[in-house]
């Protein structure tokens, strides 16, 4: 009889929960970052809260690092995650810049 092939785990058993939690926090913190940025820009929040928004981006990037590290991602995927992290940093700036210009054109 041929023994069944067992696929040995490459991820340690104890690492699964931190992986799922950190990947969830990537987007939760990311959401807080863009949410606070936008809320400050449309005057729903006071300006002093903006650094808190950027702090959430730092947390996002850190969670992304933890997640990638625990997953043992390859070189290419690690680069992809860095691109995604910087994409998230730039996204609200670029979008708000364009939106503000459209608003200016139409309201003044």
């Amino acid at each position: 009889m041929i023994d069944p092939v067992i696929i040995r785990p490459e991820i340690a058993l104890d690492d699964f929960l931190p992986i799922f939690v950190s990947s969830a926090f990537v987007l939760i913190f990311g959401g807080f970052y863009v949410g606070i940025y936008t809320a400050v820009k449309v005057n729903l929040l006071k300006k002093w809260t903006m650094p808190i928004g950027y702090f959430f981006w730092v947390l996002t990037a850190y969670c992304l690092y933890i997640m990638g590290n625990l997953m043992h991602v390859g070189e290419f995927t690690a680069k992809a995650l860095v691109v995604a992290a910087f994409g998230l940093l730039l996204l609200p700036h670029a979008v708000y810049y364009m939106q503000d210009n459209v608003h200016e054109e139409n309201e003044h």
Partner: protein
Amino acid sequence: MANNITSESKQLATWYFTFAAIIFGAQLLFGLVAAIQYVMPGFLFEIIDFSVARMIHINALVVWMVFAMFGSVYWLLPDETGIETVGIKLGKLLFWIFAAAIVVVVLVYLLVQVGPADETTIWFINEGREYIEAPRWADFGIVVVALGFVANLFLTGMKGQRSGIVTVLMADMIAFSGLYLCGMFFTDNISMDQYWWWWVIHLWVEATWEVFVGALAAYGLITIIGAHRKVVEMWLWIEVAMLFGSGILGLGHHYFWIGTPEYWWEIGALFSALEPLPLVAMFIHVLYDWGKTQGQEMGEGHIDEDHVKSVVTNKPAFTWFVLNAFGNFLGAGIWGFFHTLPQVNLYTHGTQFTSAHGHLAFFGAYATILLGMMYLAIQGSNGIKVLKHTKASIWAVSLITSGVVGMTVALTIAGYVQVLVSRAQMGATWAAYFDGQSGMWFAQAMDWRLVMGAVTFLGFLFLIKDFLSTGKNPVHER
């Protein structure tokens, strides 16, 4: 229902919405049957087996959403183009053909269930492809209906004023309809078959449907809170670029384990990592427009924040639209990102993790906004100026949302057990599968999934009560 509607296109939209609501109920009902069977395996055994209940559950999901999407387009077309929809009589005829075909297909699923596993089954019973299991005769019918729908949309868009929203919808609906063709043919090789099947499923839900949602959100924000059209349409174009930019090649995350070349690992990893970005953008979109419009209202003399007049003219619809922004971000974004990279997807693939993601993503990204569109139609058809929340609408939104979130949490716990036991500890063997399913945590999670499914269904009953009683409810401003 449609007493106050003068546009035939909007009248047709209410037909689509009504049929969609009925099929939505069927989806939830058969979902409940399947959930009960996880807990009590003998329930309706050999009458409606799990395979049949699940088939109807997930196919009804797709069908009611497609009906509601067609309804949404017929509803917004006269507003966006300034004219009556061209070829509306054809549209009405196609509605009846579509509805009749769906009724026949469901009856065959229920009464015939399985065929002789040859060409007869494919042509007359089901094709055996998840989500798009309609037999081939119905496939051709669906193609005819979709072509007629696209013709209505294009002819109207070309004749009337073509707004950015209509332009996006015209392009999107061509892709939406065309992609269905990829799920209509078989190849002998299962990997190749799955390869094409994913073109329909992934490129629908993570590309064309998301763009569709972007267009509906744009229309909704203009209609409900009076957001500035140019700003909203600017957002829409950004979202379209981002969604297609990340969504099309995000397809790669479905190609990790089906026998396709390994370069899909890199492609899937890169574009899947970028896929949450447009969802974040859509989330900001609603916040941005709401903040700007409400801020403008406050700036025009209503300085007192406690007494500022709300800019929202349809509160239930706006609640569903806001839930869409959050739900899309949570369900498609977070629950998708959990297991989108190949390193972890190796363990989560095919577990209840996928089911958790599917429940929250379909609800958050699509069901919410389509229910919001139904409320817009109810407002219009009853001639209501400001549609307010009622007890039934609050119960509906609370119970449906908490029910779906509860199901998602329960399925995530069940999936986590499978990842640890069936995959990581026991190496994905046949015995591992059953060991994973027999654990206490898995069993209890499935019990809670059933409870939360019942909560969702209860919420649906409140929703229908609210739909049917809105016309006579004096609480709304007319």
